[in-house]
């Protein structure tokens, strides 16, 4: 690009110089390092360790068996099965009060009360009830107990049905058997989960990108913020006095945060993949989405800056927007668990598109599948830039005396 009107250096080179100066300053103050690298990595780390299931879920359950009969043994046996051996430890309690206490204090994750006469009632053909004691702090343990008891209940129901059917088909009762015999019925229809191994790596693969996306917004917000700071401190006036085109100042500031944001995402990508074995998916797809998102985020923060008066106001509004977008876009809470109207609203934010795209990529989608999201993000960037363009003077004009 040729020099404009006899001025010393080209726009591009001036922009690069401005960018370099900004970056040096930020690295010195270390706040950029914290926002762009330390904080996202630390949070992704906590999430991955906590949710990644390093050792698998384990819990202790309590059982108070006042029945002592066959059905009680069947229930206890279900909890001591091989499949649950790595997950569940069973503690026996002599009485109901002791078990209630244990669940309340968290000594056990959940409890099961087997009443007197349980086996007798069921074997006689009646219906009996067992009590599951749950603690709201430990939802998973409670669900585990309910699931196991439900499975035993289903087996008992099946056995009863089998015996009744045999009798209805004309067999004498002695041939039909009874529940005490516990006819061994094979389960003809089974559910099989595809891709179990992939599910295990899922935590880091969702949260790595989701958190990186959230922090990128903070990183690019440094741009307008620093511009306004310079305006307040008067150094912007000095920049204007320098023999560089005004556009170079803008371009330089944008370039500085753009590069920082990309490096931030790239670092999260590398580190979460290496340390937490996250799988972000197709590299080309990730790069395209990252670039488009950083552009959209930069344009959004620039647009915000043209609306507010003081630097504090800009930072305040930017914080609100960033947190709201983060919430809506699935950076704090998994997108699928958000209420459906909110999931639709998330498409109004760049975050919503980016998190969806990254989620698709880590589920194995190819570049073609995320091109719509890339397009949407580019559209965000273009629209926001178009709206910012005519208003740019509000930001650039040095503060009047």
């Amino acid at each position, binding site marked *: 690009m040729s020099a404009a009107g006899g001025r010393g250096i080209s726009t591009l080179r001036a922009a690069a110089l401005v960018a370099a100066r900004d970056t040096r300053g930020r690295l010195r*103050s270390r*706040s950029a390092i*914290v926002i762009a690298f330390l904080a996202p990595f*630390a*949070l992704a780390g906590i999430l991955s*360790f*906590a*949710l990644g299931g390093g050792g698998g*879920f384990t819990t202790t359950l309590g059982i108070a068996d006042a029945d002592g009969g066959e*059905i009680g043994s069947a229930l206890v046996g279900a909890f001591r099965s091989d499949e649950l051996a790595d997950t569940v430890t069973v503690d026996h309690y002599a009485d109901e009060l002791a078990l209630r206490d244990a*669940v*309340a204090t968290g000594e056990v*994750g959940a409890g099961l009360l087997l009443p007197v006469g349980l086996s007798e009632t069921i074997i006689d053909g009646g219906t009996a*009830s067992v*009590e599951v004691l749950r*603690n*709201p*702090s*430990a*939802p*998973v*343990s409670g669900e585990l107990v309910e699931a196991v*008891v*439900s499975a035993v*209940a289903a087996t*008992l*129901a*099946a056995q009863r*049905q*089998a015996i*009744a*059917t*045999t009798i209805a*088909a*004309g*067999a004498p009762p002695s041939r039909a058997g009874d529940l005490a015999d516990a006819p061994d019925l*094979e*389960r003809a*229809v*089974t*559910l*099989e*989960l595809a*891709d179990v191994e992939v*599910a295990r790596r*899922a935590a880091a*693969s969702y949260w790595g990108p989701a958190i990186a996306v959230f922090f990128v917004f903070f990183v690019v917000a440094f741009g307008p913020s620093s511009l306004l700071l310079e305006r307040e401190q008067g150094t912007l006036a000095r920049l204007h006095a320098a023999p560089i085109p005004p556009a170079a100042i803008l371009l330089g500031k944008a370039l500085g945060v753009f590069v920082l944001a990309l490096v931030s995402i790239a670092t999260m990508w590398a580190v979460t993949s290496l340390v937490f074995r996250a799988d972000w998916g197709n590299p080309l797809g990730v790069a395209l989405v990252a670039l488009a998102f950083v552009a959209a985020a930069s344009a959004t923060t620039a647009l915000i800056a043209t609306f507010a008066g003081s630097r504090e*106001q800009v930072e*305040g509004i930017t914080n*609100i927007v960033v947190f709201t977008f983060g919430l809506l876009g699935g950076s704090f809470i*998994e997108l*699928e*668990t*958000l*209420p459906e109207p*909110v999931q639709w609203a998330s498409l109004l934010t760049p975050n919503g598109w980016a998190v969806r795209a990254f*989620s*698709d990529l*880590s*589920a194995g989608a190819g570049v073609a599948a995320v091109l719509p999201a890339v397009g949407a993000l580019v559209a965000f960037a273009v629209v926001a830039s178009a709206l910012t363009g005519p208003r740019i003077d509000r930001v650039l004009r040095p503060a009047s005396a």
Partner: protein
Amino acid sequence: MDASRTGEPGRPGTFAVVGAIAGANLRRVARDRLGLFFIVVLPLLVILFVRGQGGPDVLTVGLAVLDDGPAAARLAERLRALDGIALREYPSIDALSADIRRGIVAGGLVMPDDYGDLLAGGGTATVEVLVNPASGLPGALTAAVGPAIEAENARTAAVRYASERAGVDADTAEQAAAQVDVAPALTIDTQVAAPAAGTEVDYGETAPSRNLVLFVFISSLVAGVALVESRRLGVTRRALAAPTGAGAILLGEAAGRFLIAAGQGLLVVIGAAVLFGASWGDPLAVLAVVALFSLVGTGAALLVGATFSDPEQASSVAPFLGIGLGMLGGCAWPLEIVPPVLQTVGRATPHAWAVDALIEVVGRGGGIADIAPELAILAAFAAALLVLATWRLRRTLTH
């Protein structure tokens, strides 16, 4: 060095100074409309979103039936009749997979084309479960469709057992199975354990409690940044030049921050109750937790103010330190699912104890007596933080 309580002529009393500084803090917060967003709106927004975190009430499940026989049709009919799922049917696995990836359905079931043949031959048929690996829903899906699968299993097993034991052919056994209607053998009654057993509170309903703890602490840390700023500008040091004691100034700062934190806590309690119908249980117990945890937040705010010297650095670190501690302390997910090491680390945060206390009150109907241990620990945390912060602030202000 502290001024006397009543004050001598020309010297303001301690209470006056404390009141003035606390008042200044409160006025600053009230003027900062944007800051109010974080103190009031954001916590309530998060609660609103998080209420669905136990999983959506009705799971949208896809179904691809590749077998056109009667057995497959019967299972499909059972699935359609299930409460708690919304079933969408697909002509192929590809169509189903595409919608799973797009999040239109939470997951899907595939009945292969040899389903009926395998069952008719006396063998086992497998129904494949597809979920988006990036979602946490396989367990919920399996549990939701379980009843239909179990009913089908019972039916098939009954027919096979009957034809073997009664020595009849399959058709007769089928007819017999169709006539039979037995009462369930075992039912489950779920209760929340002591002190006051009541209807079950699911994890999603603990969201207001967990978010109250999370946001009061984050806001406190962020408020501590203001203290760093006023230290940097020398405001605090200049205040010391006035005829008051360092103790009064610190007390004023602490009082201001405590009132803001406690005010926020109360706003979340009232807001969640009014907007979402959240019930909080024993008011005295809730107040006690809010008050003590606000003290903890105050101590943390003062410690931030005392420790950092660069406000920009402090404001980068504060919110994310708050989020990180909140995560570790059980505000974001139940501590029971994290590895034991992280459970221990979580116990070292005041958050875990505050959340425990609130869940005891909200979810199990406890009163102050029931949460006495947690309150004591929160008081200890608050005392330790306040003592540490005061010590550091005195050193930096008076040296």
